[in-house]
Each structure stands twice: as structure tokens, then as C-alpha cells.
């Protein structure tokens, strides 16, 4: 009977003509195993090809015109800077109990050249983790708790009003300076900044205000800059500042004295502002250096893998290399330079390029092997710092307010004689002057060049269009495998129903189709949702744990683990126990669970690639093989073939490696030796991550529950098996 019905059906409905694109899709899905292997390997390969594909940087914004004017910084200004350096070192030798004295000197110097000066008093603010911080605006003034009057920092701010400007735009120059332990490098960076500053008070071309921020770095450079920026961007209309001032009378007195002692009329005790910031430069001078050359290092990574506009780096790079003769460095992972296989890979690429060139001289994409290795090292560090989401310097604070900023660290060829010092002040000052002059020409904010890029050398970059291809290849298997699993599980369930012992009844239900067949995935979606919910809870937990006072990292980590397990149990019992409510007939359910998991991972990785590409890339490298290989242990054990054994081993190894604490230990072990790794270390690391509101942190937790997912798969199967055995 059933057959006749089926026959009549097939008679009635001629097979619909399938469009080529649909046929192609079906082909991909049906060969998903092969396709996913090909895609994944080509994705990894494309990642290693990126240094070869990198393009030379170019200055995209015409208005910048770097180096078109000859530098105006003369020896006069250099000697000004030198004077400040000398005074500061003398005052440090004399009295070093408070930093107030040196700040006074700096303020006096600023006043002397005719700038507006103000002090900004701040309390270092602990970084607080806000689960929803990412989607909200940069944080407006939070209600601040009581501070002890003893710990505060003073930023000295000098502002030059532009003679040609309307005061609506500004360029910021930041020099971190710790008055208590003032090192020579910091003092020298102040000298360079001051020489530029004194020049800029005299020039006529200035169209944007210049703000020179001497950031008090005794609580860390980032804290000082971010405190100043918070104050700058979110004007307080409440009486909070007044209240603060009342609480700490001694500081106030100090300021009073200063105001009286300084005769300048341009000094003000209130917070001074200029216009919106176009760009910011952080200037540092490294204390020790073993380089042969005067080099300058550029640090650009801000929080969550954000980068400043490439044009800013281009301008600095161009001026430093072509005008001042400095060598430009960007950070690289040094350990990559000695890797043998990387070198041979580079040689392979080089020889391939040579062959291509011999075939057609127009093909010019090869780069020498050494350059390849260096490019890879820089790319790796670029990926690493972007993925970590922790800013590499005080410039990170600016990016939160959409201001493009970089840190320039000058590491001079070290010697103490005066000629050398003059030289470094002159060259550094001219570099800064050139950059400021370029930025001064801007009519709009930086928008022409790239925001999403990876550097492979100071003058080479990989743009978003190129590296996204590698990423897309990497995650392309996910939707395909998900689709094929979904299709398989649907069709196989139908077949099994048809084959079962009571055909008449079941085919009947199947026939008129009032079963919820196409919605069967809802059950597995529920399971996945619960696991994700658990992951979200686990990720919010540290926020509450850190409220507990006096916890060593180890104990708080233990609390975290315990609470996570507890929350899983509670969720499990409250939300109708996803592991238990499975019918015996649905042994193929794991395929659906895997399909839903993979699609959720795909969505997650896609999202992450938009938020923070580097994290997504690294996450994809770890998670995609895990997702594709995940398979219930029980089934493999039962199968007992060699292939399934291999798969079990792969699964277990991957599942454990990708579990973040395990990954952390492995990395740490590789870097510092296994002795130093401990549980508390992981807590510290996680704490440092969430302190920066890092999306990476959320991502890592996501990875956590993903790796749990594969285990959950296994456990889930075990449960089903138990049910079976009980029934049997």
C-alpha cells in the first residue's frame, strides 16, 4: 500500500529541474568531507602566504603632504629642550620626595613660551569589567568611590591656541613622565617634546590647537592618559570635583601655593580643553639600547585589536625613513626568526616565485626568504597583539574615543655626550614636527586609508580584503558540514522509519506529514542554547568573584571552577535536563546537535571576525578542526576500527588543547618552561584580559564552552546508552 502511494506520488510530481547554482551547492554539500579538507588546508596555506601578498603602503590622503615643507626646528629650540632636560635632572637630584617640583618646572617652561597651562589631578581608576561594555558608548563618568587622598597623580597639560584655527580641532602630544623615578629616557622625551612645543608657539601655519600632555605615569602610563581623556571627553556638571577637592585639603593647598608662585596669567586651575582631537602621538625614549642605529619603534594596537588609520603610520614611517634617516621597527615575535621550517617555507615560496618569473617576467610576487621570515614574525606579533585585545601602550586610550594614536619609542644609540643628545633631540623633534605639520593639513578626520589591516613590515601591510580570504577559506567548511549533517540526519531518519517493523502506521504519518519533521532540530538547538547560556554565566562569574576581598589568584580560580560546575548543574535541573529528555529512537540525534553547534560556531566566528579579526583567525585555527572532528566517543569506541581510533585520539587531544586553561599552560610551558605555570597564573591572565574589557575574553569563554560541547556530545551519547541499557 505504501509503495503504491509512493508510486503515485512520483508519477504526479515530475522531478523539478534544478538550477546550476543549486546543483553546485548540492555537490559541495555531498562532498563536504573532501571540500572541508581542501578549504581548511588552503585557508592555513593562505595565512602563510599573507607576507607574500602584502602590499607596499602608500599615503592615501592627499592633504597630508608629508615632508613637503622643510623642517623649521632649529638649534635654538634644541637648546631650549636641553635646558629643560638639565633643569629636570638637577631638580631630581635635589629633591625627589614628591614629583610636584618637576611638574612645576615643566609648567613654568610651558608658561614661558606662552602656552596655557593647567594641572589635571586624577585618581588612578581600577579597570572594571562590564559585561555589556562593548555595545555601549565609551564610558561616561562613572560614580566614583571614595579615594584616599594619598594616591593621586598630576598631569600637566599645555595648550597652544592655533593662530589660524577656530579652536575646534586639536592634535595631542603625550609624554609619559614619572616624576618620582624619572629616568633619563623620560626626561629626554620631555626635552624633545618641549623643543617642538616651543617651536609651535612661534609658527604661523598652525591651524589646529596643540595639546601637550605630560602624563604622570606613576600609576601606569595608560591610567594617566585614560583618566585625562575621560575628563576631557565627558565634562562633569555635577559637584563631584568640588566634593573631591573638599575631601583632600592638603592637595588643594599645594595647588594654591603653586598658583601664587606662578606669575603667569595663563595658568588656570580648572580643566582646559581644546577642540576635538584629530590625532595623538605618544613619545617615549627608551633608556637602554644596544642597537647600532637610531631606531624608532611604532606601537599601534589598541584595545580589542583596533588599529589607528594606516595613514598615520605611513606618515611617521615616511618622515622617519626618508627625512630623518631613522630606522623604523614594528614589534615582532623574535622566536619566529629562528624557526627552520619557516625559513624553508620562505625558500619554497621564493623558488616558486622565481619559476613563475621565468615563465612570465610580468609575475613579480616573490620576496626573499629572509624577508619572508621577518614578515611572518611581524605578522604573527601583529596578530597576537590584536587578538589579545590589550593595548600596547597609552595610545590605546585614544582609540576608545575614535582618535587615531600611535606610540613612538625612540631607542637611540646610547652615549651620554652632549652632541649626541642634541642630535637626537633635533631629529626626534623634526620627526614630530613633520608629523604634526602633516596632520595639521588635514581637513577631515582620518578616513581615507585602512583601519583594518595587518602589518608585515613598517612599509608593508595586508589589507582586510586579502586576509579575509584566508579566514573565509578557513571557516567555509563549517556551513557545508552543518548542511550535510542536517540533510543526512533528516533523510536517514526517514529511511529508518520506513524500514521499521510496522510500516503501515508509520508510513502513514510520514505520508501526510503532520509530524514536526523539519523542526526536529529544535531539540538540539535547545541543548546548544543551554550550553551557551552556561558559557555566558561562566563568563560573567569573575565579575562577582572579584568583589570578594582578599583572594589569592589560586583560590579565586578554584571558586570560579566550582561555581561554574554548580551553575551547570542548576541549569541542567531547571531547564528540563536536556541530556535526559531524549527519546530512545533518536540515536542519530548527535548529528543534529553537531550540525546546530557547527552553525552556531560559524555565526560566532563570523561575528568575531568583524569585531576582532585576529581573535577570530586564531580561534578558527583551533576550533574548526575540533568542530569538524567532534564525534561521540561511544560510537567510535563501538566501531573499533583504526580510523575511528585515530579520530578518538584527535578528538581528545584537540578537545584538551583548545580548552583555554590547557592551551594557556601549553603556551606558557613552551615559552618559560613548565615550572612557572600554575593555576593562579591563568587567573591572573584572565583577569588582565577582562580588565581591558576585551572581547577576546568573551571569546575565550566561548571557546571554553565549545570544547565542553564536544565533551557534552560524548556525555550525551553516554546518557542515551544508559537509557538503552536500562530498557534492555
Amino acid at each position, binding site marked *: *500500500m505504501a509503495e503504491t502511494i509512493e508510486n503515485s506520488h512520483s508519477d*504526479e510530481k515530475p522531478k523539478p529541474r534544478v538550477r546550476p547554482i543549486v546543483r553546485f551547492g548540492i555537490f559541495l554539500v555531498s562532498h563536504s568531507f573532501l571540500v572541508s579538507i581542501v578549504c581548511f588546508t588552503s585557508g592555513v596555506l593562505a595565512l602563510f602566504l599573507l607576507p607574500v601578498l602584502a602590499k607596499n603602503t602608500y599615503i592615501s590622503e592627499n592633504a597630508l603632504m608629508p615632508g613637503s615643507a622643510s623642517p623649521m626646528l632649529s638649534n635654538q629650540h634644541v637648546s631650549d629642550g636641553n635646558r629643560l632636560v638639565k633643569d629636570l635632572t638637577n631638580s631630581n637630584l635635589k629633591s625627589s620626595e614628591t614629583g610636584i617640583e618637576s611638574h612645576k618646572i615643566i609648567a613654568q617652561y610651558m608658561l614661558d613660551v606662552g602656552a596655557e597651562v593647567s594641572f589635571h589631578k586624577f585618581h588612578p581608576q581600577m579597570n572594571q569589567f562590564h559585561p555589556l561594555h562593548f555595545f555601549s*558608548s565609551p564610558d561616561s563618568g562613572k560614580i566614583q568611590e571614595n579615594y584616599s587622598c594619598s594616591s593621586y597623580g598630576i598631569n600637566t597639560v599645555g595648550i597652544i591656541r592655533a593662530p589660524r584655527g577656530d579652536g575646534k580641532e586639536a592634535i595631542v602630544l603625550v609624554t609619559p613622565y614619572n616624576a618620582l623615578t624619572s629616568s633619563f629616557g623620560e626626561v629626554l622625551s620631555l626635552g624633545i617634546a618641549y623643543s617642538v612645543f616651543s617651536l609651535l608657539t612661534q609658527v604661523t601655519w598652525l591651524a589646529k590647537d596643540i595639546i601637550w600632555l605630560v602624563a604622570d605615569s606613576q600609576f601606569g602610563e595608560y591610567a594617566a592618559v585614560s583618566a585625562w581623556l575621560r575628563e576631557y571627553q565627558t565634562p562633569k556638571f555635577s559637584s563631584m570635583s568640588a566634593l573631591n577637592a573638599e575631601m583632600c585639603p592638603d592637595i588643594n593647598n599645594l595647588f594654591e601655593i603653586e598658583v601664587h608662585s606662578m606669575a603667569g596669567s595663563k595658568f588656570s586651575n580648572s580643566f582646559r580643553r581644546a577642540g576635538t582631537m584629530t590625532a595623538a602621538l605618544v613619545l617615549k625614549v627608551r633608556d637602554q639600547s644596544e642597537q647600532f642605529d637610531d631606531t624608532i619603534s611604532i606601537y599601534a594596537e589598541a584595545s580589542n585589536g583596533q588599529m589607528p588609520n594606516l595613514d598615520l603610520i605611513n606618515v611617521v614611517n615616511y618622515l622617519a625613513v626618508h627625512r630623518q634617516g631613522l630606522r623604523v621597527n614594528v614589534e615582532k615575535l623574535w622566536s619566529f626568526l629562528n624557526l627552520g621550517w619557516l625559513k624553508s617555507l620562505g625558500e619554497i615560496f621564493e623558488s616558486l616565485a622565481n619559476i613563475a618569473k621565468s615563465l612570465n617576467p610580468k609575475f613579480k610576487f616573490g620576496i626573499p626568504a629572509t624577508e619572508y621570515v621577518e614578515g611572518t614574525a611581524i605578522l604573527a606579533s601583529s596578530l597576537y597583539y590584536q587578538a589579545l585585545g590589550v593595548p600596547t601602550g597609552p595610545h590605546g586610550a585614544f582609540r576608545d574615543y575614535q582618535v587615531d594614536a600611535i606610540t613612538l619609542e625612540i631607542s637611540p644609540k646610547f652615549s651620554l655626550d652632549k652632541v649626541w643628545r642634541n642630535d637626537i633631540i633635533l631629529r626626534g623633534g623634526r620627526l614630530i614636527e613633520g608629523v604634526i605639520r602633516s596632520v595639521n593639513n588635514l581637513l577631515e578626520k582620518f578616513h581615507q586609508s585602512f583601519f*583594518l589591516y595587518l602589518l608585515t613590515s613598517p612599509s608593508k601591510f595586508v589589507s582586510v580584503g586579502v586576509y579575509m580570504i584566508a579566514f573565509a577559506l578557513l571557516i567555509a567548511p563549517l556551513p557545508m558540514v552543518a548542511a550535510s549533517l542536517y540533510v543526512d540526519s533528516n533523510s536517514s531518519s526517514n529511511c529508518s522509519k520506513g524500514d521499521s517493523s510496522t510500516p503501515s502506521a508509520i508510513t502513514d504519518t510520514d505520508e*501526510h506529514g503532520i*509530524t*514536526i519533521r*523539519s523542526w526536529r*532540530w529544535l531539540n538540539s538547538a535547545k541543548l546548544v542554547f543551554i550550553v551557551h547560556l552556561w558559557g555566558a554565566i561562566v563568563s560573567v562569574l569573575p565579575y562577582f568573584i572579584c568583589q570578594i576581598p582578599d583572594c589569592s589568584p589560586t583560590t579565586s580560580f578554584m571558586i570560579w571552577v566550582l561555581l561554574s560546575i554548580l551553575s551547570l548543574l542548576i541549569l541542567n535541573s531547571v531547564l528540563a535536563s536536556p541530556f535526559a529528555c531524549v527519546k530512545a529512537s533518536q540515536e542519530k540525534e548527535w548529528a543534529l546537535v553537531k550540525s546546530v553547534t557547527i552553525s552556531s560556531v560559524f*555565526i560566532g566566528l563570523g561575528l568575531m571576525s568583524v569585531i576582532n579579526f585576529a581573535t577570530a583567525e586564531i580561534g578558527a585555527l583551533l576550533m574548526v578542526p575540533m568542530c569538524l572532528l567532534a564525534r561521540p566517543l561511544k560510537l567510535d569506541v563501538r566501531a573499533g576500527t583504526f580510523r575511528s581510533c585515530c579520530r578518538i585520539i584527535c578528538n581528545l587531544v584537540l578537545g584538551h588543547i583548545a580548552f583555554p586553561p590547557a592551551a594557556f599552560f601549553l603556551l606558557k610551558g613552551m615559552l618559560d618552561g613548565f615550572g612557572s605555570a600554575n593555576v593562579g597564573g591563568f587567573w591572573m591572565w584572565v583577569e588582565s584580559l577582562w580588565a581591558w574589557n576585551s572581547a577576546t575574553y568573551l571569546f575565550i569563554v566561548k571557546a571554553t564552552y565549545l570544547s565542553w560541547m564536544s565533551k557534552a556530545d560524548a556525555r550525551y551519547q553516554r546518557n542515551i546508552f544508559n537509557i538503552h541499557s536500562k530498557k534492555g
Partner: protein
Amino acid sequence: MEKLKKKIRSFSFWNWVIASIIFRLILIYFPKNLNLCSRPEVSTPLTSFRRLAEGYWLKQSSMSPYAGSMYHGSPLLLSLLGPLTVKRIEGQPNHLLYSLVSVIADVVSAMLIRATGQNLQVAYFGTLKSLDLVKQIELSEVHSSGDVAALIYLCNPFTIVACVGLSTSPIENMAVILCLYGACSRLVPLAAFGWVIATHLSLYPAILIIPVHLSFVLAICDLLLGYGPDAPPRKLFLQRHQQKGLSSQSKLPPGFSWGSIIHFAFWALLWSVYVLVLCGISLKQFGGLWEMFKSTYGFILTVEDLSPNVGVLWYFFAEVFEFFRNFFLIVFHVNILFMILPLAIRLHHRPCYLAFVYVAICSMLKSYPSVGDSALYLGLLGWFVNELSDMQFSLFLFCGYVGVSLLSPVMHNLWIWRGTGNANFYFATAMVYACLQIVLVVEGVSAMLNHDRKLRSLILDKPRDAKS
């Protein structure tokens, strides 16, 4: 046994309802409502709470609430909800009263959806019975579509977000649902009231007049033949009767009855006059009704506000040349009208489903769509859970909706706060969202037609089975 099962099911239904209400209340107590009311996905110029408060403030200071192009809603909402925007309870969140009103509106809508769904289900069973397909019902697992739809509506994150985000869309949705409820339970005055209010609040539900009429027309048939608001096409019944050897032609009513239409038109007229009079009274000194029409319907139709939302029109009209603007305005609005007639012809036997399709199309082509509109049609989709059990791409659609609703805030963040993205990023998600809605509608309609075909084939096969 059966009763026990039902009891368990209803028990868990009420559990879920309570859980969703508690969840809403928890979210309301979050500080600043999680900034939801400033999100472009939640509050459009028409439904924004801040604009409502502004309009109320303007009216209180005896200015026209429509001054300065801030408020674009109904004057009735101002008088009803306006006082709640300023009233505060000490120690409680700022807009607690208003939030409570939207929570209540959500719950009422869910209950109305449930009642309508149960109506539809009874009708569905009645149809199957009259077609002698009862055996199949008993064999298969049938979900109580009313409960499912109500739960989908209540637990949908879109609904929750629209409710907590203080937009007025819960109230607009309630009006639409009231209209459909009235139509399905044959309460002409209620249906007319819902239709008039829904049209007054957001204009687009005006096209629901067709499904409402159809349902009344079919309701007349129902009295004669015993099948309900949503049923397979009438041809089926004819065939069935012919097979039985009955000459049932005489029993079938004429397809169209003027009586019910006139009845509905009378009530609709009455209610609309009533609403207009009320509006006229409240706007007497501020330019009268003309001013209201200009800044509500006119604002909707001319797409004046181009601030980003989840729709596609803002981007298009920001890009289009000024002298083409009128042309494209007409094109986009006629787009909705074009689809009305073919769909009405194809789906005339299922007025409720037709209403769902219309609501979905409107929320796609609306000038200021928000997630609250999607919440409405996704809830209505639950009514047809039995019919649509074979819908294709369900997992794909689900993942798409999840992906888009996560991607949209991220893209907005990239564009507005980080400055690394641009408007195209955000608009891309809006386009994906529109595509998803199109796929949903297309797949839904084809699944429904397939269902009808399946019923027909079952009926045609029956006699053959009996012979063999």
C-alpha cells in the same frame, strides 16, 4: 491519560508565561534599560519613547506636539501614555509605569494570540473531520498551535527587546492582534475597532482589511458548511462531495456576501469617526486633524527621517537623487499594494495566513521598521505550526535570524562608536535581514500550498485505497 497530558502541557505553558514576565521585569530593573531605548533596531522615529515624552512635554507647554518634527505618533497615545512618561515612583526605575504598560500589552496580545490559535485549531480539526481525515490526526503528534504561538510571541527576544526598550510597538502589535482576534471569533465590532486603531497608529495594517473581510465571508460559509476561518480551498470540498456522489453544488454558498462587508464597513466607519473626533478634540488648538495627518501619515509615506534602522529605505533615500525621490517613493509603496491582490487570490481560503503574509511583507517594506514588527509576524507564524511542519530551510532561517540580530549591533558599533566601519556595514545587515524575511515568506507560502496539495492527494487517494 490524555487529560493529564493536557494538564501538564498547560501547566508548563503558564510556567513559561510567568517566566517571560519575570524576565522582562528583571530587565526593566537594569540601569538605564540597557540603553535599549536608544538602539535604532528597537525604537524608530514612530515608536521611540523619547519622542513620545518630548511630544507630551510640548503639549503640556501648550505647543503643538508635532512642532519641530519630533513626535510622529497618534495624539491619542499622547493622552493615554504621555502622563506615564513623566510620572515617577521614588526608588524605582524611571519609566516603571510605562514599562509595566508594555508588559501588560505583551501579555494581553499573547492571550489574544492563544485564543485565536485555539479557534483556528478547532476549525482545522473540523475541516479534517469533514474531509474524513481524522485518522491521521490521531496518529500524528499535533501541537496546540495557540499555546505555541503565544509562547513564541512572549519568549521571542525581539518582543522582549521591544518591550523593555520602551517602544510603542507592543501597543501597535496589540491593536493588530485584536483585529485578527475579532475577525477569527466573528466579533465584527471588535475586529473593526482593532483595524481602525491599528491603522490609526501605524497606517500599514490598513491592508489587513482584505483578510478580515475574507474571514467574515468564510465565516458565513462556515455557518452553512461547518468549516472554519482557515481551511483548505473550497474546491477540495467540492471534490470530496462529488466523490461521495452528492450533488452538493446547491449547498455551497455564493463566494461573496455583501451583508458582512456592509456590517464591517458600518462599524469601521463608526470607530474611525469616533477616533477622528477624539483626535480632533485633543488637537483643536494645534492645527487640527490636517496637521496630524501631515506629520503622521505624511511622515510615514514620504520617509523624511533617514536615520538608520533595520529597514532598507533609509539608505536608499539617502543615496537617491532628489528629483527621483518622488518616483521611488511611489515605487516602494506601490510595491506593497502590488502584492496584495495576487496573494489574496492565491490564499483567499486561508485569511489568517494571508494576514500573516501581509504583516510580514509590511514589516519588510515599511518605511520605519523595527524588531517589534518582526516579533508580531513571528508570533503569528506559530498559529500554523501544524501546517508548516514541512517548511524548508527552517534551520537556515533560524540561524540567519540569530546571526543578523547579533551582527546588527556589532556593525552599528563599528560604524558609530569605533569609526572603523561605515554605513555600508550596517546597511549590509539590513539587507540580509530583508532577504531572510523574503525567504521566510516565500518558504512559508509554498509550505502552506504544499500542505493543501497534500490534503488533496490524501482525499483523492482514499477511494483508491478502499478499492484495493
